């Protein structure tokens, strides 16, 4: 039973990793590509870590490590993607021509400074 649940979780992780990879290849501009990448990490890695916890039991050595790694990923991934996108925005990388809205300029200091 545990093995089945763990295998399903691994499959979920693999599915999101795959969709993230496809998104990185197919999305039109930096901003949406980064967005796909974050999904691949968050929803791709966390289920796999959960699977390792499920497979070996809550009190196991693996679970404590998985919790630690999961917390680190949950904190670093959004912060790093945020910094990456903000750097791209400040560097003036344009949005996809089909993008309908750009609220960034309201939050960023004038770049022509």
């Amino acid at each position, binding site marked *: 039973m545990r093995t089945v649940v763990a295998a399903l979780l691994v499959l979920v992780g693999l599915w999101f990793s795959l969709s993230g990879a496809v998104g990185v*290849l197919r999305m039109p501009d930096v901003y949406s590509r980064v967005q796909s990448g974050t999904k691949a990490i968050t929803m791709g890695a966390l289920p796999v870590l959960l699977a390792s916890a499920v497979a070996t039991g809550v009190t196991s050595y693996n679970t404590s490590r998985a919790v*630690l790694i999961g*917390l*680190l990923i949950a*904190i*670093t991934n*959004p*912060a790093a993607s*945020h*910094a990456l996108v*903000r750097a791209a925005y400040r560097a003036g990388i344009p949005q996809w021509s089909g993008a309908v809205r750009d609220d960034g300029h309201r939050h960023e200091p004038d770049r022509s400074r």
Partner: protein
Amino acid sequence: MTGRQESHDEHGRHRTWAAVALVAGMAVLLLLAVTDLPREAAPLPTVAREAMTSALPAWGSTEPVSVVVYGSRGFDTFGETFLLLAAVASVLLLTRRRERRAGFQGEEVAATRERSEQDPHPTSGRNEREARAAEREEEREDSDGPDASWSVPPRLPGLTVVVQGAARVLAPALAVAGLYLFAFGSSPGGGFPAGGVALGVLLLLYAAFGRHLVRQVTSAAGVEVVELAGAAVIVLIAVVGLVAEGSLTANWLPLTRPGGFRSGGILQPFSGAELVEVGTGLVLVTFALLDLRHDWADDTPEGPGREQ
């Protein structure tokens, strides 16, 4: 479909054949690696068996990798450490700021008198004007002033509150993880990787909050002293082993109960000295290079370059 045709393709279509070849190659490699994994019951190599069997009786430690790194092959670690120390010393020599000297005069000031004797009415040609303008421009960029241009990376005070918040949460957690790696890190663990973690924590803070926060830590004169103290402790541990037990990095401390913090004789002090030496060494090198600005001496005492 040939590579030549594709290089003519202006918008760079994805080279499917390259991707397929790379992915297939990786898949074959992974498959080979997985099928070649040692089974659980497979016999260990002789070296590994030797390390496993000697760790407990000879060193009183349950961690064979730590015994190899800081004990039975401690001399290798010793060598690596001093290789690192030599690298740190050379980087610091190359990146060191000019030292304050009493009565130092730049070339231009020192030559003023002689030049005015030789050539009382200097006329500056186009070349000279251009060279001086370029030099002034370079100094202005380096001087970090409000008008520093965008051609040098702007020295922002730090990143956004998102990144800073993440760094605030992560830095203590990573520091604790590094100390854990040193104190109880099961094989492999110890001071060498923990020193790397220490650098990582400082780099995280540097990235999130800017150099002003970490400068007090990283540019303090004491850091070099601490690093050399760590190296001295390593030498001491190794040499006492040579004198007392007949071989370099031999154990000369009493063995305590295996599994505890102090088990393994000299392993833990050696590892701690490595933590100090490696951590401070990496920090010194990294921040010496990150803080590298112009390295020439100012010609005039009130020149635009600033001491930092």
